[in-house]
């Protein structure tokens, strides 16, 4: 497995290190012995067919699940299995299915995100001392900055449930950033978005990275992933198959096989992969049906990968 690991030059120290993470539900092993490192200043992609265990892995990282085996450490410290402590440590995330606080306003959602970074005594709140008002103002100012950053400032007083879909996604990101994380986990941030929105999200993720926040992103949109990520890991049936730069992963026959469900008997060259992709692109041009590059064919990938990296 380690032979596949590529750490591009110019990246910093490890922010997240998952070591030997295994998650079993009864007899089912959803995630098997996954090793993953995210360095500061990096955007790392996590791809894989549906049901490969990507979201389960995210849940292990954020303390929603307690991994059966393995540890997750953030900046060298092993994380406790309590979600609120994970957030406090500096990991924030968004969800595959939007999970905003629907009956709170946009601003309130972001303020809730700031929970771990603000303090308040019961008495200071009840007495509304000057310290309380100052802390409230600062918190609100910071929340407004984030809303400006994501372009939602004008909608601060709208209820979250009334926002259009794309903006709900943005609000989730703003809320996650509010906890001042060192690492942001994005679970399919562009699901259901049109190409313009996807591109805008791409810009947003770059801007987040430029603020010094490392990003780990799950996505099915390969164009998005390969544009964005310094490094990509592919998860298939709970195991990490490949990890490397976009080119390496794109060219790996096992990844292609996992996505297309076609085992390549003869090791194919890059040309063949390109051919397949060209054919797909052609197919999507003609019919806006299922786009095979977005993993819609994931359900057919029951054929096991040939080469197990372990």
């Amino acid at each position: 497995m380690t032979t596949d690991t590529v750490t591009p030059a110019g990246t910093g120290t490890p922010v997240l290190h998952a070591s030997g993470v295994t998650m079993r539900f009864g007899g089912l092993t959803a995630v098997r012995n996954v090793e993953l490192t995210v360095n500061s200043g990096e955007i790392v992609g996590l791809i894989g067919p549906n049901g490969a265990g990507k979201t389960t892995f995210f849940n292990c990282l954020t303390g929603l699940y307690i991994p059966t085996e393995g540890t997750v450490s953030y900046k060298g410290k092993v994380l406790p299995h309590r979600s609120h402590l994970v957030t406090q440590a500096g990991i924030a995330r968004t969800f595959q299915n939007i999970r905003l606080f629907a009956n709170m306003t946009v601003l309130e959602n972001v303020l809730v995100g700031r929970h771990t970074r603000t303090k308040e005594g019961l008495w200071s709140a009840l007495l509304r001392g000057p310290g309380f008002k100052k802390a409230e103002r600062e918190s609100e100012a910071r929340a407004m900055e984030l809303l400006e950053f994501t372009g939602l400032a004008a909608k601060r007083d709208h209820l979250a449930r009334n926002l259009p879909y794309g903006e709900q996604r943005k609000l989730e990101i703003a809320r996650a950033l509010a906890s001042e994380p060192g690492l942001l986990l994005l679970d399919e941030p562009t699901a259901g978005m049109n190409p313009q929105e996807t591109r805008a999200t791409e810009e947003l993720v770059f801007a987040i990275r430029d603020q010094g926040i490392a990003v780990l992103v799950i996505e099915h949109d390969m164009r998005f992933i390969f544009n964005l990520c310094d490094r990509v890991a592919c998860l298939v049936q709970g195991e990490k198959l490949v990890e490397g730069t976009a080119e390496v992963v794109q060219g790996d026959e096992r990844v292609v096989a996992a996505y297309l469900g076609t085992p390549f008997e003869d090791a194919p060259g890059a040309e063949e992969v390109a051919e397949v992709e060209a054919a797909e692109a052609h197919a999507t041009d003609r019919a806006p049906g299922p786009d095979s590059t977005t993993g819609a064919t994931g359900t057919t990938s029951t054929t096991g990968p040939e080469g197990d990296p372990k």
Partner: protein
Amino acid sequence: MNDLPQQLANGLLLGALYGLIAIGYTMVYGIVQLINFAHGEIFMIGGFGALTAYLWLPAGTSLLFALPLMILMAMACSVLVAMGAERFAYRPLRGAPRLAPLITAIGLSIALQQAIWAFYPDATKSRPFPEFEGGRIDLGAFAIGRGDLFLVIAAPLCMIALGFFVSKTRTGRAMQATSQDPDTAKLMGINTDRIIVTAFAIGAAFAAIAAIAHGVKYGEVNFKMGFIAGLKAFTAAVLGGIGNIYGAMIGGLVLGLAEALATAYIENIPGMSQLGGGAWKDVWAFVLLILVLLLRPQGLLGQRVADRA
């Protein structure tokens, strides 16, 4: 006889009392979807706490001077019992099927009642509660009891403080977030266990205030008083839309008004003279509940239609 203003005043006072207790039901339900049937006993224990504090003071102490100590003691007793119940009875059952904590709550309710009956001196019968001296206060169109003044001042203050707390403070926002989606709230760095304890504690503190109001209004406390008061307050919470704190206040007031008006006027309706008066007030309260559940099951201010216990 035009005593409508008087009946309205009686109803509002009673309703404010129900509303204060109902807060405890609705906050706990809003966050952990548990109907804490022991809440009536939390209220009753607050009453005995206040009485204990009063008896500590030298005989003949003016009730007005004793009141701050009584409030503190009542709150301390109620909050401690509620937090203990949460920690040792409900928390181990979190994640269990919803019937388990519900039955635990009923058992706890009986246990607390019997504990006071058995261990509090002379609690096998009603204990007299100190009352304010002087007669009723005449306000022109209607008169209120001197003890009711406590409720008139305390209930609005408590409600305003709670409204502010929930909507404007960090902990209040965390509480709203937890009630909407506990898992996501955890991932926002909110310690949901602490939020749940806070909800129990606030409900208990409000019940303690209500217990003192109840004591000075009726001049006695007894170990059974939590049962019917709790049932009425629960009705108020459901009436207003359980899980909604403003609903609890409104539900309490509506229920109090309905009871007062039914008691006073039902007997004037031809053919229903048998069904009026104090003996039937509980019946009319629950008839109102049934009507609301039939016509507007989510309660007056409620939004959630699904999953009501």
